[in-house]
């Protein structure tokens, strides 16, 4: 990835050009195929990610939605190659970034990819920054380690990044404890975007923030996304955030993607009983329902997942076949995938009517 020492403007332009190229070819920029990750300890094995496949085009935003423990963060960490190992074991699969398999890349190759081509925004800004290093230095560090620039140049770039995320450049030499949570998340975003990454993994970037700050950070991410044309994977359990930010959505349940499609597909024409359940649990602002309809039960224990469809113990449409047969992904409409055996039986319209 030749970001080299080219200046910001040049970089931006080339990226946009590339975006246009790719758009015409519809080339898949990131492809995850059949990724499996488990956490092995002496006592038990947690099957965190079980055969996840998805792809992402340049400049698009994919939302990975799921409950806590569904395996969303594990997917992101696997892409970045920062799974804690042990106990994490990659069971198989491929992660292709611009055609190269980065799952099999050596640690040295990953040093060039991390922070440069793929970066990550973390869930909790309060703990994501090194408390004994100035925030400016923490931004500068990424630039220094990936681009051949002088110290002064790196510092200037870091100051620009601070300004870009809405922090005064004069706060360069302050420490994380001098910033509020929202400000810290801005710093984390500045670190993530400092080297103009191709792919940004945002792991619940607003979960730890209060609602007003959430909106600010989301706005900031949107603006920067437009500016830099970075592909983004947004991990969240907040469907509101998804509908605001994402082009495509993948619903993760018990380490599998159960439904995937464009934002409209998922929100307008949901097919999987789990997604229907999730939408049923959101109060409509103009609705007059007295009670919401939550999904009964709990997410399955990832150390002993149920056979067949992982969702069948909680699914009101479950049939005998669901309990034993592994369920594959089916394309139910162009670009809209769903992992359910019962798609035909109670038809979609009927489901929605309920």
């Amino acid at each position, binding site marked *: 990835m030749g970001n080299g020492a080219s200046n910001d403007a040049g970089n931006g332009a080339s990226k946009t050009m590339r975006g246009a190229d790719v758009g015409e070819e519809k080339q898949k920029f990131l492809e995850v195929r059949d990724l499996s990750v488990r956490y092995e300890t002496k006592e038990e094995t947690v099957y965190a990610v079980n055969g996840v496949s998805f792809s992402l085009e340049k400049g698009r935003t994919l939302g990975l939605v799921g409950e806590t423990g569904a395996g969303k963060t594990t997917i992101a960490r696997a892409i970045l190659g920062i799974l*804690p190992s042990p106990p994490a074991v990659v069971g198989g699969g491929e992660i292709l970034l611009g055609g190269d398999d980065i799952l099999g890349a050596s640690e040295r190759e990953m040093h060039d990819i991390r922070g*440069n081509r793929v970066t990550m925004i973390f869930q909790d800004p309060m*703990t*994501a*920054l*090194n*408390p004994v290093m100035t925030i400016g230095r923490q931004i500068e*560090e990424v630039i220094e380690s990936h681009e051949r620039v002088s110290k002064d140049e790196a510092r200037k770039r870091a100051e620009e990044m601070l300004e870009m995320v809405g922090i005064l450049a004069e706060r360069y030499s302050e*420490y994380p404890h*001098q910033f509020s949570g929202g400000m810290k998340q801005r710093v984390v975003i500045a670190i993530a975007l400092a080297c103009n990454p191709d792919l940004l993994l945002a792991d619940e970037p607003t979960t730890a923030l209060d609602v007003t700050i959430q909106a600010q950070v989301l706005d900031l991410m949107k603006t920067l996304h437009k500016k830099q044309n970075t592909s983004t994977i947004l991990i969240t359990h907040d469907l509101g955030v998804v509908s605001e930010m994402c082009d495509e959505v993948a619903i993760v349940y018990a380490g599998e993607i159960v439904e995937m499609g464009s934002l409209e597909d998922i929100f307008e024409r949901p097919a999987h009983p789990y997604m229907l359940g999730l939408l049923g649990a959101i109060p409509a602002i103009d609705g007059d329902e007295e009670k919401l309809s939550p999904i009964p039960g709990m997410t399955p224990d990832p150390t002993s997942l149920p056979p067949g469809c992982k969702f069948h113990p909680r699914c009101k449409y479950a049939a005998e076949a669901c309990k034993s047969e592994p369920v594959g992904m089916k394309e139910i409409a162009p670009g809209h995938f769903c992992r359910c055996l019962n798609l035909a039986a109670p038809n979609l319209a009927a489901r929605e009517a309920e």
Partner: protein
Amino acid sequence: MLKYILKRLLMMIPVILCVAILVFTIIYFTPGDAAQVVAGQGTPAEKLDELRESMGLNDPYFVQLGRYLHQVFVKLDLGTAMVNKTSITSDMQARFPYSMTLALIGIAFAICVGIPLGVYSALHQNKVGDRIAVVVSMLGVSVPHFWLALMLILLFSVKLGWLPAYGVGGIAYWIMPIIANCVGGMATTARQTRSSMLEVIHCDYIVTARSKGLKQSQIILRHMLPNALIPIITVTGMNFGGMLGGGLIIEQIFTIPGVGFYLTKGITQRDYYAVMGGVILLSVAFSVIMLATDLIQAFVDPRIKAQYAGDVKRRRKPHAREA
């Protein structure tokens, strides 16, 4: 920050004063006769009475205490040794460098060996290397240094004849005392480094650092170690103080003419003034070390610094903005 240092230095005065009062009081109430010590055995009773009167030993406790404190803190004179009749202040000046050398080199070794060992252990947690390091440092903590000193002498001086068993001179004379003095410190440093590194390794900001694509060495040196350093600094400060004061036995074994040796001699000879002088000097040294420890911590961790300097800085800032 300067204000803080000044404050801490001023706070040392009451601490040392308390130490002086405490030491004086304990020795005052210890059974024994200072006049007897000064005059030596077999002195006639009338002469002893005379001496007691001239030394002011018949004065009330508070008068004696006041006189001693006045002598130490106003005249800056630790008095005259009872047995050898030498000036304790100049004795200390001659002896302190030996103790300091022993402790300084010891602490340097403890840091240079203990920290890398602890880092290695933490990074290879529960692997063979770590297990060995843990056992070795456990041994290091448990072995009493006087025993180690004796074993070293047995092996290297008596059996092999490589190193001189006692005295001072060239480097060869220092090797065994330093080893005996620093093994415990080395081991505690290694253990503390390992445990605080293990705490830091799983922190979120280390994941951030990894996600930046930094090399492992950069992550260790810039992100892990600085964050793990605070408890290590505390332990090192304690070790340093311990080596300075605890060198007493080592100095005795290897007959190094340091403060510790002077103290033990003073104790055996019941030379009250010498003991008091030595203890006061060591307590001053200890206070200075503790101050240095705190300052280094503030330098390493900006959050600690903010506690010290915070209110001063914050008050100044709005003014700067207005201007």
